[in-house]
């Protein structure tokens, strides 16, 4: 009986796992189901004519993966790569790509009810990347919707590298 009630509660308020990373001192989260792996920073080969938000490409076990400059995409000032910098390989819109982050923190569990709607004021397109915000361990966690990280055309363009 108690198990059934718990299952009903879980269905009504599902718990999701989020991989958290840091950018410019703020903590962000992405759905763990979209994360394939996390790599240490390797040499990224620049691609001539690539969009500004693309740093370059890496060779991931024989597969070429484009790496997105997340700071640039989020409208944050650029910074130097450090030892804690990581490339997070994600899968979004059926495309596998990498995002460069300052550091990867942990995996957190959040219930849907713990996620609040984020403000979206202004005309900056980057605001739509934010899926919601949540508080975990007295820290604000900004949840990123990776599907909206790039537009349809941009995803297609990325696949051409």
């Amino acid at each position: 009986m108690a198990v059934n009630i718990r299952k009903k509660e879980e269905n009504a308020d599902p718990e999701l796992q989020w991989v958290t990373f840091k950018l410019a001192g703020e903590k962000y989260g992405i759905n763990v189901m979209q994360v394939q792996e996390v790599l240490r920073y390797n040499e990224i080969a620049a691609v001539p004519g690539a969009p500004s938000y693309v740093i370059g490409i890496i060779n991931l076990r024989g597969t070429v993966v484009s790496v997105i400059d997340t700071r640039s995409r989020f409208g944050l000032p650029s910074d130097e790569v450090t030892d804690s910098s990581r490339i997070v390989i994600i899968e979004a819109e059926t495309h596998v790509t990498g995002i460069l982050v300052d550091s990867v923190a942990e995996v957190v569990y959040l219930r849907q009810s713990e996620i609040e709607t984020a403000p979206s004021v202004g005309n900056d397109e980057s605001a739509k990347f934010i899926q919601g915000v949540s508080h975990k361990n007295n820290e604000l966690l900004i949840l990123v919707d990776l599907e909206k990280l790039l537009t349809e055309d941009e995803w297609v363009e990325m696949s051409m590298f």
Partner: protein
Amino acid sequence: MADSEPHSKNHRQIQVLQNYLDDLLFDTDSDLGADSGVEPGIDINVVNKTKPAVETEPLKKNPDNAHAGTNTESNTASNTKNYANQSAPEIPVSALPKRKPAKLISKAAAPAISQRIQVQSESLPKPTLRVKQEPKPEFKRNLRSELKQEPRPEPKPEPRVAPKLETKSQPRTSPRAFVSAEQELSVLEEQKRQRLQSMLSQPLAKKVLNSPLSRPTVVDKKALKQKTAESVTVVPVVKEAVVQSEQKAHADSESDPAARTSQNTDEKVSTFLKWQKNGRPVWAQREFEVLMFEVSGLTLAVPLVALGQIVPLTDKLAPVFGQSDWFMGLLPSKLGDIRVVNTALLVMPEKYDPAFTSEAGYVITIDGHPWGLAVDCVKQALKLEPDAVKWRGERSKRAWLAGTVKTEMCVLIDIPQMAIQLDGADKNLHSN
């Protein structure tokens, strides 16, 4: 001659003692707090309740009284005479403290005094009763020690319920003045609290009752400036509002939004937003209160009824990328995240000083909305008559600007309107 001299001496002693006791019991004009050994601020009721209760005990043992009382007609006075008759031979005159002559109490004055005592006993804090409860065995056994005013164990300092009621500038020489002033203040305070709570919407009213503001807390600039203070929910109930006009507010309960406490937030905002034909919003149809604050050197005023909480901006704001410049970030609070607005940039972008972001000390939230206005400092609250404001006629541009407070020469913000505009700027809010 030899007989008459001791008799005369005794009689003099009795007279002095009689005066002393009369004075002790009925001299309400003297500084009772000091004379009775009671902590200043303890009311006369304590003295009249405690001392006679102890002192009249021996009287029943000596009903005969050769030296009838001189002035008083009450039973208490009669008891006092008996008391004097019994104890006079034991007390040297030199040992008695010099006091001013006893004040006589007539039958006509007795009810008034009784009423005054009653009023004080109701208006002043009850903890004073602890004085009465303290045992005084020495007093019963040895009257001399009591009359010499030997130091008694002082009652423990009681928590003062309303310490503000006693001001240093008011000497406590007149109990009548003290009582009336205290009554006025308490009545004023109660009226103010009730009115504010009734004017506030349901959710905020709960906050007022449950939060520390249910105590007589105050939006005190000094207190608020203590940045180390925890981010307590503070509803701005102001202790001493500056009254601009002494005119009574006309009791138009029908148009008063305060009467409608059951409405939800949206209804409340729309009600507040409505501007009447007389060119004033609903909340300004009668005397209303505003809270003054400063933003980059500019003094602004907002109606108290639309305020949520005041939160010290001690913690770092969490910036959210992709937002407008006037959005400073999210500030976590017990009631949820506050979306902090750069008030200086929003209100006067032409004179914006970027230093404001680092100088802002507080966030004033809008009741029923997630928005908070970053401000430099919070000033006092003000009661305003509608006529004290020059209301804007045309409000198509900068609709949040309600008018100008004439006396203060500051801008009055129509904060419900501003909240609506901020909500309108949030795309996520629209999509939801």
